[in-house]
């Protein structure tokens, strides 16, 4: 890992810390109030705020996790930095696509 990847990984970790707390609070709120999927969707549909919140979350997760996977691959597999980097980028893109799909489903449905 070089300093650029280090800064990105630490910055996305700092960004995710409050987002994770809000995410967990939302889960507790939804379960303690016995909200159904329809109740939740009625609040998230068309909400630019939730789209921005989870959009930021997904972007931070994709960057943070892919840097971590790159490190694991380069230290624990026979892959060199280039191969590890390519696989990590593919993994990050997969996370971003899956996350974006989930956001579209709860905001645009």
């Amino acid at each position, binding site marked *: *890992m*070089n*300093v*650029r*990847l*280090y*800064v990105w990984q*630490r910055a996305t970790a700092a960004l995710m810390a409050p987002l994770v707390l809000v995410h967990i609070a939302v889960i507790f709120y939804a379960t303690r109030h016995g909200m159904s999927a329809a109740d939740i969707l009625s609040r998230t549909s068309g909400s630019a705020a939730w789209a921005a919140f989870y959009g930021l979350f997904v972007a931070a997760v994709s960057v943070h996790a892919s840097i971590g996977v790159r490190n694991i691959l*380069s*230290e*624990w597999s026979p892959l060199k*930095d280039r191969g590890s980097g390519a696989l990590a980028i593919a993994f990050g893109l997969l996370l971003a696509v899956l996350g974006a799909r989930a956001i579209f489903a709860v905001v645009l449905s």
Partner: protein
Amino acid sequence: MPADLSVSLWRGAKDGRYETYSVPRRESQTVLDVVTFVQRHIDPTLSYRFACRVGVCGSCAMTVNGKPRWTCRTHVSKVAGSGRLEIGPLENLTVIKDLATDMEPFFEKWQQAQGVFAPSRTRYDAIEQIRPDSPARRAADAAIECINCGVCYAACDTVRWNNDYLGPAALTRAWTLVNDERDASNTARLQAVSAAGGCHACHSHQSCQELCPQTLNPTASIAGLKRRTAAAYLKGEIKI
């Protein structure tokens, strides 16, 4: 105290094996004394490295009962309560023969980490006044007593996994110089330790600080380098 120690020593190069010897147990006996006894009284072909015998030169480090240690200052009573010793070459370095390893990669990485003082004044200038209680000087002092023994390098898991990793000793040296107000090469040094294999590869396992015979804390030095290089990168002083 048993009359004899059972001592297994690594013999040969990479494809060698442990051979067991019986060595008389003595008062205040060090692990280096044990190795020297074998070489002088049992098998003169045994190869190992030492010089000062008093914990200054850093040349006698070996793996003792699974842990890297400076053998001249390691008492047998501290590590061989059962009367058995297994002594091998340092890990993470190529064995030349028996207990002697090739230290070249270790010292090459000091060069890669720019571990050489770059003077900012000439011999004709006045000597720079450095306050011993300044934060930078205190940080430099905290890491300056490294004796280059290689114990931290042999103990480091990251070195084991990543051939390019500069290792705790080279990075600690770089941190000392980064805090030396007289040094003129800090931008190049921060650049050197910011590349792949530099300080950011450290996982902070802290085996280095646990086993450093000088009780230094390379993990803390490396953490300092991580902070300093991140700040320099964000200010655009170094590029990757």
